[in-house]
């Protein structure tokens, strides 16, 4: 699309807004793009884009994957345009492009990595043509926006161009089917000891064949619909991976067998979920042309973003905050499962209220899709539920089979630390929503103070 006067005016006004926000010390990630699109609805189509555009979408893991991609590419000499500072909807991507554009909309950077909200695919891909599109996975998410996986995959399918190179998850029978005629590479995580043959989760969105509706047999199920499967009544089956990670948890590495030999990468954490993120990045960057050595060198000193995970220690008790996206039952279930598998005696503070609903009433349907049953484990000595919807959590935890004596329920989050046992506990997990960073920090500090006050130790 050509640049016109309307576009130039929108660009200048949005650039001025960006400058003003910077002068005021505000985050300039979303607002300028919103103005630009308001003034010029096809702004994204008219502004120049870098020569190479990589997009990352999917229900879970897209932010972590994007952060890793930016780090690895940055360390290997690429100056990468990105929307890391904020929004992954059309206005966020517009802001990112505005920040890099000259006064006449010319782009300076050669490569971009954009995180794309699945629901915004139609608005974004109509104007931004990705050379490579990664989809980490597709699960149920917010019911108000994303409805169900069949809907969200149809949106992405419709929106993505036919010549985009796809990087897809072979273990996800939903997202692996996207854009079947496009060129593609599949990533996977090899069968693990913890995999089963029956789904242990409440949600499994592939209980019948997506192609013929027939009966599905899983060779293994990892969680929800993730695993290796085939239909007993038609030819539908999991695709064979091009990049399959084989983790060695003790050694702290994973290997990938390719046509060129065996590649070895350091693991950032002994977690299957983060291994998925890492193999996603490997699949994209190896396809893009980066060497295994360069990727491995970057992985060696990376860590998970601190806003999502922090760990402090007091008297030998680890106090861990873990961002657990409320409204996203799969993300919550993954964290609950992770906590259950962690060694030692654990206590859990569940403070998952979405702050944006504080003045109203939060839709709680997701609470009943999330596997709180994983917290019903001998190694978990106490669960403290808190927040506006505490009675719903209390009910859900009881329905999960957790004994009443293990539960404490308080409306005010700041009362949670006093409800913990602490003495003899190895780890306290504070599970919080993205919207409550300040409250989370106060609760964490409260737990540390309580340990000190009581002289508790592991």
């Amino acid at each position, binding site marked *: 699309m050509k640049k016109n006067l309307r576009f130039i005016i929108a660009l200048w006004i949005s650039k001025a807004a960006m400058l003003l926000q910077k002068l005021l010390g505000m985050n300039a990630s979303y607002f300028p793009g919103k103005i630009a699109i308001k003034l010029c609805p096809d702004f994204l189509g008219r502004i120049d884009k870098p020569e190479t555009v990589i997009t990352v979408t999917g229900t879970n893991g897209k932010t972590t994957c994007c952060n890793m991609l930016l780090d690895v590419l940055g360390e290997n000499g690429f100056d990468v345009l990105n929307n890391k500072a904020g929004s992954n909807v059309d206005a966020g991507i517009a802001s990112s492009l505005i920040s890099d554009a000259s006064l006449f909309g010319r782009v300076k950077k050669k490569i971009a990595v954009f995180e794309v909200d699945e629901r915004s695919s139609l608005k974004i891909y109509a104007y931004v043509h990705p050379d490579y599109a990664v989809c980490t996975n597709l699960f149920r998410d917010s019911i108000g926006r994303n409805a169900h996986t069949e809907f969200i995959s149809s949106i992405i399918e419709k929106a993505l161009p036919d010549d985009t190179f796809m990087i897809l998850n072979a273990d996800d029978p939903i997202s692996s089917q996207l854009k079947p005629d496009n060129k593609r590479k599949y990533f996977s995580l090899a069968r693990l000891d913890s995999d089963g043959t029956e789904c242990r989760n409440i949600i499994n969105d592939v209980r019948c064949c997506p192609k013929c509706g027939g009966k599905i047999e899983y060779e293994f199920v990892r969680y929800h619909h993730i695993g290796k499967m085939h239909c007993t009544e038609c030819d539908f089956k999991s695709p064979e991976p091009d990049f399959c990670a084989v983790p060695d948890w003790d050694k702290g590495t994973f290997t990938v067998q390719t046509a060129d030999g065996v590649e070895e990468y350091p693991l950032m954490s002994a977690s299957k979920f983060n291994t998925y993120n890492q193999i996603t990045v490997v699949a994209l960057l190896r396809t893009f042309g980066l060497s295994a050595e360069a990727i491995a060198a970057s992985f060696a000193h990376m860590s998970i973003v601190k806003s999502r995970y922090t760990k402090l220690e007091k008297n030998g008790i680890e106090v861990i905050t873990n961002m657990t996206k409320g409204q996203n039952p799969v993300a919550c279930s993954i964290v609950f499962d992770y906590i259950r598998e962690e060694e030692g005696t654990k206590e859990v503070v569940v403070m998952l209220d979405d702050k944006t609903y504080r003045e109203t*009433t939060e*839709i709680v349907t997701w609470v*009943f899709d999330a596997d709180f049953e994983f917290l019903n484990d001998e190694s978990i000595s106490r669960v403290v539920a808190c927040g506006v919807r505490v009675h719903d959590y209390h009910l859900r935890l009881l329905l999960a089979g957790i004994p009443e004596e293990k539960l404490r329920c308080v409306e005010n989050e700041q009362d949670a630390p006093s409800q913990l046992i602490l003495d003899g506990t190895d780890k306290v997990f504070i599970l919080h929503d993205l919207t409550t960073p300040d409250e989370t920090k106060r609760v964490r500090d409260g737990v540390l103070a309580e340990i000190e006050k009581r002289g508790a130790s592991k």
Partner: protein
Amino acid sequence: MKIEVLFPEAANLFGDCWNYRYLKECMPEAELIETSFGDTPAFADGDVSLIYMGAMPESAQERAIKKLMPYRERIVELVENGTVFLMTANAGEVFCKYIENEDGTRVEALGLFNLYAKRDMMHRHNSTVLGKLDNHFMDMDIVGFKAEFSQLHGLDTDVEALAQLSYGTGRNSETKVEGVKINNFFSTSIVGPFLLMNPLFVKYLMELIGVENPKLKHEEIIMAAYEKRLKDIKKMAGK
């Protein structure tokens, strides 16, 4: 006492499975029959106390219609003889006259009542709901949430409602009339664990299927959650 759950492999979105799971918690002696698309429904040639179906993707709705169409007469007979049906979210649309797509094409449905559903896949109607069960059968506050691509429209406005809303969207954005009630056939487009959000309605259903002095599982907690939500939504609605 038999509770039949239709097509749980697909009709299980938004925590809807807890509607029948909770009934089972309250009535441990009840037999839960999960009928898949490949099975013959238990109601086809036997008596069941309650038939439940929950939220599902649009393709599953069409599959459910195909699967149930041969049993249409049997379903009519069951409804007439007072068998309890509970349909939540878009499950009730399977029983309406037809479902109309955006392009005007129609999927003929079971035609149990003279309403039709209209889909608009690019617009999701989200709503918080407050209402009262229709006074004809019980005075009870109903709360819940809606998240829907399709809404019911009237060919015949005499179809009895399940509830009258004072806040939120009813059968469609233009009405406060919510759901459908025909004898003991109850349909609401409220999504998710409707029964967990409305414990008094659970007691009502239990009484209907013959439980004397019904007791709810975790009654004190579920009532506290209900009262709190009711209070919050009333505040939100300015009531």
